[in-house]
C-alpha cells in the first residue's frame, strides 16, 4: 500500500542510489495512460541495493496480459541507465497488483484527464455492484456502463445519460 500520505518511494534513510532509482522511475510514464508514472500506478514493488551499490528493481504487471509490460520494463531500464545507475529490472507477479496501490497523486491525475479513478476495494465491497459513478465532465450521477472492457485492460467504458459523453473508468482490481 502507499504510505500515509498516499505516496510511493524510498524508505526514510534509504541509500542514495535507491533514492536516485525511485527518482528515475518516477519519470517513466505508463505507455497507455501517459499521465501516470509507473510509481503512481503502484507497479514498482521494490528497489534495493547490494553492498556494491548494484540495484535490483522489481516491477509487477497490472493485468497478466497487459501488452505494455514489456515496454514498461524496457523504459524503466532505459531511465535507470540514463541516470547512470547499475540496475537489474525483474518482473514479479506475487502478491498480485491491485488498484489500491495507485497513489493518491495518481488518482488525482486520472481524474484531471477525465478518467474516473478506481474505487478503493474496501469501499467497493460495501457498495458494489450498484456503485454510483459520477460523470467526470458534468458531475451527473446518472451514468451507465457501456462495456466492462474499455480501451485498455484496466478500464471500463461508461457514458453519461445527462451530457451524453462517454468516459473511461479505471476498474477496481
Amino acid at each position, binding site marked *: 500500500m502507499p504510505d500515509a500520505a498516499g505516496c510511493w518511494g524510498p524508505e526514510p534513510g534509504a541509500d542514495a542510489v535507491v533514492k536516485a532509482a525511485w527518482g528515475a522511475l518516477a519519470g517513466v510514464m505508463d505507455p497507455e495512460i501517459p499521465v501516470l508514472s509507473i510509481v503512481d500506478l503502484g507497479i514498482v514493488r521494490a528497489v534495493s541495493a547490494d553492498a556494491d551499490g548494484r540495484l535490483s528493481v522489481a516491477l509487477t504487471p497490472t493485468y*497478466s*496480459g497487459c501488452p505494455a509490460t514489456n515496454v514498461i520494463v524496457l523504459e524503466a531500464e532505459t531511465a535507470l541507465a540514463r541516470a547512470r545507475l547499475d540496475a537489474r529490472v525483474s518482473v514479479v*507477479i*506475487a*502478491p*498480485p497488483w491491485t488498484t489500491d496501490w495507485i497513489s493518491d497523486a495518481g488518482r488525482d491525475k486520472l481524474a484531471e484527464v477525465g478518467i474516473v479513478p478506481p474505487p478503493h476495494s474496501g469501499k467497493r465491497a460495501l457498495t458494489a455492484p450498484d456503485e454510483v459513478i459520477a460523470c467526470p465532465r458534468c458531475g451527473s450521477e446518472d451514468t451507465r456502463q457501456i*462495456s466492462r472492457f474499455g480501451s485498455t*485492460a484496466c478500464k471500463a467504458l461508461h457514458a453519461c445519460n445527462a451530457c451524453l459523453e462517454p468516459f473511461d473508468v479505471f*476498474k477496481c*482490481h
Partner: protein
Amino acid sequence: MSTDLKEALFGYTLRLGDTSLVLGHRLSEWCGHAPELEEDIALTNVALDLVGHARMLLTYAGELEGKGRDEDRLAYRRDVFDYRNHLLAEQPNRDFGHTIVRQFLHDAWAVELYGRLCASTDETLAGIAAKAVKEVRYHVRHSGDWLVRLGDGTDISHAKVADALGRLWPYTGEMFERDEAEQALVAAGIVPDPAELKAAWTARVEAVLEDATLDRPADGWMQKGGRRGEHSEHLGYLLAEMQFLPRAYPDATW
C-alpha cells in the same frame, strides 16, 4: 519435491497453460469480426488475459521440466500431439452465441479452479492463480451476462445458444478427468480435487443456465483425449497459423 511429483506438476501446468493459450488464440480470431465494437474489444481483452496466463504457466512448466524450454519454445515448437489443452478450447468459432457458451463453460471452471489454486502448497502456482483469479472473475461475469441475455432473449438467440450448449456439453467432462499423477498432486495439497471442482462448477453453471432459460444437457458420452494429445482436426489449423512465423524463421529476433 520428488521427481514423480515434479513430473506430475509439469503435466498439470502444461495442460493449464495449453488450454489458456489455445482458447486465447481462438478468441483473438474474433478481432475485427465481433458483432459490435465493444464486444470486439471485450473478447480480445479476455484473449490477452488468457495468453498472459499461458505465458506464466508455460514458463513455469519449462522450469519444472528442467530441459531448458521456455514459454516460446513450448508454445511454438510443439505439434498437435504434444499439446495437452482441453478439446473444448480448440473448438472452432461458429456464431457469437457459440463463442459465449464455450467461454462460459470454460470461465466457470477457471474461476473455481484458480480460486482454489490460490491455496496451493506450491508457491509459484499459488502466485499465478492469485493473479489469474482476479481476471477470470471478470471473464465469467462477462460470458455469464451474455449467456443470460442471449438465452433469455429472442427466439433466434435462444435457439442459437441452446444449439451451442448441446454441441459443447460433451467437451465439459474432460475438465474433471483425473489420473494417478494428478491424484498425487491432490494428496500433496498442490491442486484441488477434481470432484470438488466439478460440484462447484455444476452449481455455478446450473444457476446461470436457469437465468438464461436454458435446459442443462444430460451428461451422456463425454469426449476425451486432450490430456493424451489426441485432438480434433481443428487444433492443427490453429497451430499452423499461430506457429507460422517461428517455424518459417526459427530464432528470428527483431
